């Protein structure tokens, strides 16, 4: 269930394929039709209400099945009324929408030029920051470590990061421990495994022994997903293949130079490899884990406590931008907005293929996958727990880990939670959900059992 879906709809489809009302081929079409029915301009108030209600509903019913059963038995209208009994939706919405005076208006936000940063970037040219009274400069940054350092230095007020990074930084894996927070996920899905053209007949991962792969960073979903995918096919990622950390543009160049066999990298580099004829898309990461988180919007704990209103306005801009980017019909417009040299600096046709999900796969086919990349800000703490199980699986962290504790410390639940506290309320604390990765269900309450169930893992 996406943050932007109506949580009071018991008939809401939970899986991809077809739409929720059953009359359209895809969810995207359904939404487009809905949009025509609804007034073209949704009132802002209503949107905030939706976001807040969604967060509350999600918190009360972390399991979709339970939510459904509840809604079916009492009906949506009664459900809203019942929820309002326990939690004043209107007050929280107002608190969320208004906020106090801004402590600081000129902000700097760092980003890495990849499509994962779309909401952070597009919020500047499309005016989402300005709407919330902020003057935000989005600054292209030379690498993940630099982003980390510049946020610590306070040159940046907030930044685009990989979703495992705030966890790694907080736990001190690969750097000194420092309390970091991740108030929003930037994008879900949106990566792919790209292989060199010469391997177009070797699509079975079991035959990939000896391959050389590249991922952008050790503490990245790219690394964990690639390792997971290989291990599920019986390839030990530590001994059977080589996985290197390589900056994304060098992935394409190395692929062309025959120096690596493939990579699991961020877009636009997968599509760029296809565009330049250097490789083909073997599998989208959404087919490994539908709805996996990728990049994140991160801020230091200090920024949040020192400038709560500014932080609130910034997060609101990001959430609004994410909501805009979530809608399929806006994607072409976004591609146009972020293609110039000031932002991603890529051919527009490449970005369009990624964002609209109608793309050339490099083998001569035009593939249609509307949610090849999607945008959903809710920082599920179970995502954090999964990431930590993989960090432990591959020896990045050791010993006993307080999975739930770290997850709740770093993956801040929606801003609604914070604003609820400000309003003197007791926010719900359940922010986990179960999901499955390559058909294997993950129970966030039992991380160690999950970890023990893998045959291939680093001996520690």
């Amino acid at each position, binding site marked *: 269930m996406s943050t932007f879906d109506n949580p009071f709809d018991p008939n809401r489809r939970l899986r991809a394929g077809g739409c929720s009302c059953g009359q359209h081929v895809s969810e995207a079409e359904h939404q487009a039709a809905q949009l025509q029915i609804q007034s073209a301009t949704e009132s802002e108030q209503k949107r905030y209400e939706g976001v807040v209600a969604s967060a509350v509903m999600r918190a009360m019913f972390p399991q979709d099945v339970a939510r459904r059963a509840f809604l079916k038995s009492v009906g949506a209208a009664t459900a809203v009324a019942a929820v309002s009994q326990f939690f004043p939706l209107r007050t929280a919405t107002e608190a969320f929408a208004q906020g106090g005076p801004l402590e600081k208006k000129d902000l700097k936000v760092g980003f890495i*030029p990849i499509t994962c940063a779309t909401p952070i970037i597009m919020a500047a040219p499309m005016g989402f920051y300005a709407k919330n009274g902020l003057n935000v*400069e*989005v*600054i*292209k*940054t*030379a*690498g993940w470590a*630099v982003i980390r*350092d*510049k946020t*610590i*230095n*306070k*040159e940046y007020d907030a930044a685009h990061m990989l979703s495992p990074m705030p966890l790694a930084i907080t736990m001190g894996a690969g750097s000194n421990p420092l309390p970091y927070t991740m108030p929003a996920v930037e994008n879900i899905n949106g990566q792919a495994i790209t292989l060199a053209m010469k391997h177009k007949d070797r699509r079975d991962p079991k035959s990939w022994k000896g391959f050389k792969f590249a991922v952008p960073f050790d503490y990245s979903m790219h690394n964990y997903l690639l390792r997971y995918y290989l291990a599920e096919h019986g390839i030990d990622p530590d001994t059977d293949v080589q996985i290197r950390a390589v900056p*994304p*543009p060098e992935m*394409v*160049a190395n692929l*062309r130079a025959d120096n690596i066999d493939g990579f699991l990298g961020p877009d636009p580099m997968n599509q*760029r490899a*296809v*565009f*330049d*004829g250097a490789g083909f898309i073997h599998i989208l990461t959404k087919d490994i884990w539908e709805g996996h988180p990728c990049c994140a919007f991160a801020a230091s704990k200090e920024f949040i406590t020192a400038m709560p209103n500014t932080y609130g306005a910034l997060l609101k801009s990001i959430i609004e931008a994410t909501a805009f980017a979530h809608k399929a019909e806006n994607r072409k417009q976004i591609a146009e907005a972020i293609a*110039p*040299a*000031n*932002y991603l*600096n*890529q*051919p527009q*046709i490449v970005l369009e*293929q990624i964002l609209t999900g109608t*793309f*050339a796969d490099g083998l*001569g*086919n*035009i593939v249609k996958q509307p949610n090849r990349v999607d945008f959903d800000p809710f920082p599920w703490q179970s995502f954090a727990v999964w990431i930590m199980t993989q960090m432990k699986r591959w020896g990045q962290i050791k010993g006993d880990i307080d999975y739930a504790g770290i997850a709740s410390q770093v993956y801040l639940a929606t801003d609604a939670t914070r604003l609820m506290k400000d309003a003197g309320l007791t926010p719900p604390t359940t922010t986990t959900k179960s999901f499955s990765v390559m058909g294997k269900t993950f129970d966030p309450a039992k991380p160690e059992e999950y970890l023990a169930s893998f045959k291939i893992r680093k001996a520690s």
Partner: protein
Amino acid sequence: MTSSLRFRAAVVSIVLFAAFLGIWHLATRGTGATAAMSPEYAKLMGLTATQGKSAMPGPADVGAKLWEHLRQPFYDNGPNDKGLGIQLGYSIARVGLGYFLAVIVAIPLGFLIGMSPLISKAIDPFIQILKPISPLAWMPLALYTIKDSSISAIFVIFICSVWPMLLNTAFGVAAVRKEWINVARTLEVGTVRRAFTVILPAAAPTILTGMRISIGIAWLVIVAAEMLVGGTGIGYFVWNEWNNLSITNVIIAILLIGIVGMLLDQILARFTRMVTFPE
């Protein structure tokens, strides 16, 4: 005789350059093999994939792009997209500032070391250890302690330009002919006056040679430092264009880096000639 040599050298240079351009053009012409694909699919692909265009740009591509940059060197489209003139300006300003600070520190200190054998011996071990450290190795430390990336870049320029100047100044000062100093002493010239009227002019060529080495190193380092730190400057431009996989722009940047480096070196070389004296 000399003018004819110069003329012949110029001709050879031009021939070499033309040959280089010709080979470059032929090598990047592309195979021309048009891949068979549906027009709908071809629309989604780049020229390399559809028309067999070489992945490396040819001299004509680079020339056209260079002309585009030169026509508009100072445009400013926000924090991430500025004209090449502005980027070069940032780099030169950083180099200038770091280098100027190095001059302020290195020349007086070099004088002191050169004039006093005691201090020279005492400081020598530190210089020997600090001198061979790659300037970029200081970068993470600078970022971490200074907490400002543009000051860090200036600091790195400072630290890399200080050693050649310091050593050359010390050497130049220590190597001033004893007779000259003795003459000054017989004439009862004071220490300060002796330093300025006798030692400085005598050591100036060596000092300027050190400064010339330093500016070369500083210009080498700034590109790498800006690639690491990002933000502005020609090094950042290279990084940014590499991200875009635009080899054309990377080649243009390399060309401009070379030209600016040569100009900086020539300026210092001219100064060196001005202070050099026949013995």
